[in-house]
Each structure stands twice: as structure tokens, then as C-alpha cells.
């Protein structure tokens, strides 16, 4: 029972790390950003490569891969996402999916298609209620809560955060005040990408790294963004944890149904939601 809860919270935490960036792009620009999956996957592969370079130090490799992904995210924002501003939904999907395909293929070329396992960096388990609970998973869950608090502070206190919060409500209104929304947004986009990389790296020891890992989490993260209210950052957090729990609880009784149940919940939410958001 406790194991199921911790597992659900872990999955939810990873989904939250990934979905923040997706929700931000959706909330401000109404873009379904498939390229997010590419950033996530590439970050994990860079992490695995760096891990060998820095003598298996998890934190050093994590920092290095985050730093390496910042320019990549900036390039995607500057040359793809920004040019899609005001475009229809479908063109944004095509362009970002193109980026995802290019990235996935480049990864397959460089690292091959065999999945890479990553060791649990903590490797300690605490006995709890008769079961062994990996400390690493608890750390992942706690870091998601810490991130939630930090992001709340960022979006309420900092200038960039407040501009973006306002732009999520009404981008044109903010622009009318003479504020360059796009410039602020690009900072937040890079931040969201970094969080996706962080989520990917944290998830790697629990699963394995393969070139298509970005595709799989994208589908689940769409559900998180929809259930969380499309660009609502608080909603994204609770939706991620709730859907993580849905997956864990379903998986406990019927492992193959875990993913499908997420989509059942998503369909129900879309149907029962009082007003069409977009």
C-alpha cells in the first residue's frame, strides 16, 4: 500500500517536472510543444555520457547536462517556437514534431537504440511497514514538492514570473503595457526545458533511457496539462500527482491498464469541464 503511494507520487513528480514547460508553452502561446519530448530525451542521454566523464557523480553529471541543454532549448525557442507565434495549432504541432523527429533520429545515430540502464545514485532502502522503500524515490517526491514551492515563489515574486503569470491570463493585455512578452517568455521556456531535463534524469534510474522515452511521456503529459486546466500551473502540479496516483493504483491491480486509465480520466475531465478553455 505504502509502496503504491510512493510509486504514484514518484511518477507524479516526474510528470510534474516534465509538464511545467509544456503547460507554460500551452498557456502563453497555445502551442502543443512536441519538441519538449526531444529536450527531455537528449538531456538524459547527455547525462549518461557525462556520468562516465565525471566518475559516476550523479549531481555533477546532472549539472553538466542541465548546462549543456540550456543553449539547445534557447535555439529551439528562438528559431522554432518564436516563429510559430500566432500560428494555428496544427502548424505549431507539425514544426515541433519535426524537431522531435530530428532529435530522436540524431540520438539513435549517436547512441544507438539499445536502452541504457542507470544506477540508483543513493542505493539505500529504508524498511517501512515490512517493505523496502528506496530513499531515492522519496528524494524525487520531495524535490517535486520543493520545486512546486520554488515555482510558486518565482511566479509571484520575481518580475519575469509576474510578467509571465499575467501573460498566461491575457498576453495581449500585457503587451499593451509595453512589456515584451516574448523575451520574458523565452526565459521561462528555457526554464521549463531545464525542468524537463531534470525530470528525465531523475526518472532514468527508475526506468531506462531509450530514444523513444520522450514520445511516451509526452502522451501522459498532455493528459496532465489538460486535466490541470491548460496552462494553470497549480493545476498542473495537482493533476500530475493525481494522475501519477491513478497510474500506480491501476497498475497495482491491472498493470497493463495503467496508461489507458490516465486517458479515461482525461476524457472525463474534458467532458465534464464546464467551459471550453480554448
Amino acid at each position, binding site marked *: 500500500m505504502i509502496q503504491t503511494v510512493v510509486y504514484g507520487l514518484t511518477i507524479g513528480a516526474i510528470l510534474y517536472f516534465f509538464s511545467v514547460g509544456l503547460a507554460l508553452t*500551452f498557456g502563453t502561446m*497555445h502551442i*502543443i510543444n512536441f519538441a519538449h519530448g526531444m529536450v527531455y530525451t537528449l538531456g538524459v542521454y547527455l547525462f549518461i555520457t557525462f556520468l562516465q566523464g565525471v566518475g559516476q557523480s550523479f549531481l555533477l553529471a546532472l549539472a553538466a547536462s542541465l548546462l549543456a541543454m540550456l543553449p539547445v532549448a534557447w535555439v529551439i525557442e528562438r528559431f*522554432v517556437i518564436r*516563429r*510559430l507565434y500566432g*500560428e494555428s*495549432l*496544427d*502548424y505549431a*504541432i*507539425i*514544426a515541433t*514534431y*519535426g*524537431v*522531435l*523527429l*530530428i532529435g*530522436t*533520429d*540524431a540520438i*539513435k*545515430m549517436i547512441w544507438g537504440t539499445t536502452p541504457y540502464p542507470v544506477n540508483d545514485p543513493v542505493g539505500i532502502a529504508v524498511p517501512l511497514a515490512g517493505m523496502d522503500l528506496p530513499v531515492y524515490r522519496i528524494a524525487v517526491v520531495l524535490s517535486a514538492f520543493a520545486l512546486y514551492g520554488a515555482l510558486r515563489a518565482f511566479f509571484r515574486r520575481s518580475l519575469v514570473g509576474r510578467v509571465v503569470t499575467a501573460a498566461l491570463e491575457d498576453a495581449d493585455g500585457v503587451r499593451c503595457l509595453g512589456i515584451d512578452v516574448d523575451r520574458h517568455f523565452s526565459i521561462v521556456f528555457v526554464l521549463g526545458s531545464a525542468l524537463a531535463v531534470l525530470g528525465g534524469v531523475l526518472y532514468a534510474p527508475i526506468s531506462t533511457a531509450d530514444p523513444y522515452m520522450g*514520445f511516451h511521456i509526452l*502522451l501522459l503529459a*498532455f*493528459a496532465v496539462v*489538460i486535466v490541470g486546466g*491548460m496552462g494553470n500551473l497549480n493545476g498542473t502540479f495537482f493533476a500530475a500527482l493525481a494522475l501519477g496516483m491513478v497510474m500506480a493504483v491501476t497498475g497495482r491491480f491491472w498493470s*497493463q*491498464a495503467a*496508461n*489507458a486509465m490516465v*486517458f*479515461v480520466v*482525461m*476524457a472525463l475531465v*474534458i*467532458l465534464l469541464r464546464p467551459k*471550453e*478553455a*480554448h
Partner: protein
Amino acid sequence: MTFMPERAAFSVQPAARGALLREIALLAAGLLLLALVIRVHWMADFAVFFILVLSFDLLYGYMGHLSFGHMLYFGAGAYGAALWLVYGNASAWAALAVGLAAAAGMAALLGGVVLRTRGASFALINMAFNEIGHFLVQSPLAAYTLGEDGLSCTADPLFGAISLYEDRWAFAFCGAVLLAVYALLRLLTRSPFGLLVRSIRENESRVRFLGYDTFRFKWIAFVIASTIAALAGGLFTLVQGFVSPRVISPFGNVDVIFAVLIGGAGSLAGALIGAAAFLAIKNFLPVIIPELSRLLDVKLPQWELWLGVVLLLIVFSLRGGIVGTVQARLRNRKPAGEAQ
């Protein structure tokens, strides 16, 4: 007297009829030419993909509803036919009919639900249902569908003589169905109904304001598009004699969406050209690239990367796909030639 716009004549202009015959002939000639260039073995599969892409063009190109779940109906048609062949009898016609009926029923039911949304929600709720369908086939219904292992099935020859497991007959049959589907969609999109569907794409509120029950028209178009997709699925089963959960996988949607966009959404010719271009990228690049890389002695990326490049090109410079770009070029040239 009340004005009843929905009763407006569903007439076809006499001039259009000759044009339709010409287009059908052109399409048939194009198919035969293609069959000469590549192996006939592939042609039935290509025709099936063409039908699927045409059906998606009605939903997306004409009505402006981007769906990530069209493969659900393709898969329903494929599995409906396969299940009939395995547990019913070996009649190909009955199998097709069962597949169509299953998909049409599902589309009629789900259409009432998904069409209450639009934009991103519409795209993603369809994906959700597609994912659920994929799961149902894979796991809970595995007793009948055999899950990941897939289902083998054989159909009796059509009219007791035409075996669909012979490449030429398979191509002839699927090609004929493709021509019929093209004719049907061509008539439909040029009819007042087609005009209404296109108007819904442009501005649904205004269409509603004119007194039309837009939901009903959207629902009809959705059911038609889904049923034609199921027809493609049923043909797939008959020709292949094998279905696996891959035919209903949501990842297949991407192929269809891109085929429509590469050619140019909102035109039947565009959908067909796009489907051909997409199949060329998908089937020939994996053959050409290893040859080329051996010739140049460098490691070249696989076809997915090139598809990604094509997609970025479409969005950033070739808006409107192949057909749209060519049309725009022609339109720009015309004023110079026709200067009065």
C-alpha cells in the same frame, strides 16, 4: 414560410460531372503509372493509405478539425473485419461490412462526445479514445484479438475467383475502391454540404448564426470520415490477412496528418499527392540512404530526420503543402499573362 437552409438543393453542377470523370481517369492513370514504377506488391498498401488520408482530409482539411485519434476508426475497421473472418465466416464482403458497421457505430457514439470540444481539446480527446481503443485490443480483449501476437485471417476469393492474396488483384480491388472513395468525396465536398463543412472550418459561430445546426453537420462529417477510414482498415485486413495492435496505435495518426499537410490540406488532390510524397519519404529513403552513405562513405541519418526537415520546411517556407505552393505560384504568374 420558413427558410430551411438545410433543405438547399444537394445538386451537382452539370459542368462538374465531366470534370469528375476526367479526374477519376487521371487518378486511375496515375495509379497504373505508379504500379509500373514500383512493385505491384506495394500498390494495395499504398491504395489503402491513400483512402485513409482522403478520409482524414475531409475531417481536417475541409472541416478544420485536427484529430490525433483517426487511427481508432482505421483500427476498428481492420479488427472488425479480422474478427469476422476468424469467428464468423470467410466472406470478404461480410467482413468489410462488419468493420464498417463497427467503426460507424463507434464514430456515431463518440462523435457526439468529442465534437463538443474543438482545437487542442478535440485533437487530444480523440487521442485519448484512440489510446483506450489500443489498450482494449491489446489487453482486455486479448482473448479474441490475441493481443500483441496479432490475428491471422483468410478470406474467400471475391466472386469465387478473385483472390486478394494475389498482388495484382489486391491492387485492382483496392484501386477501384480508392477511385470510388475519391468520387464520393469529390461529390460530397463540392455539394452544399461540403460548402457548409468548409464554412464551419472558417467560422463556426457565423454558420450557426445563419440558422444551421452546425453540430449535426459536424457529426455527419465526422461519421463519414471515420467510416471511410474504417473502409481503409477493412481493406488492409483483407489484403494483409493479418492484424496486430499496430493498426490501431495512436502513433499512426502522425503519418496521416503529415501526409495531408505535405500535400496541402483541404484539397483531395493535395491529400493524394501528400500521401504519395509521404510514402516516398517513408519507403524509399530507408533504401536509398544506406546506399548513398556507402557511396559517399559517411554515416547518414535515417529517414525520420529527413521527414523532420521536410516538416520544418513545410511550416516555415512551403505553407499550404505541395499543391498550395504550386497554386500560389500559378496565381502569381497569372496577372502578368492575363493583363487586360
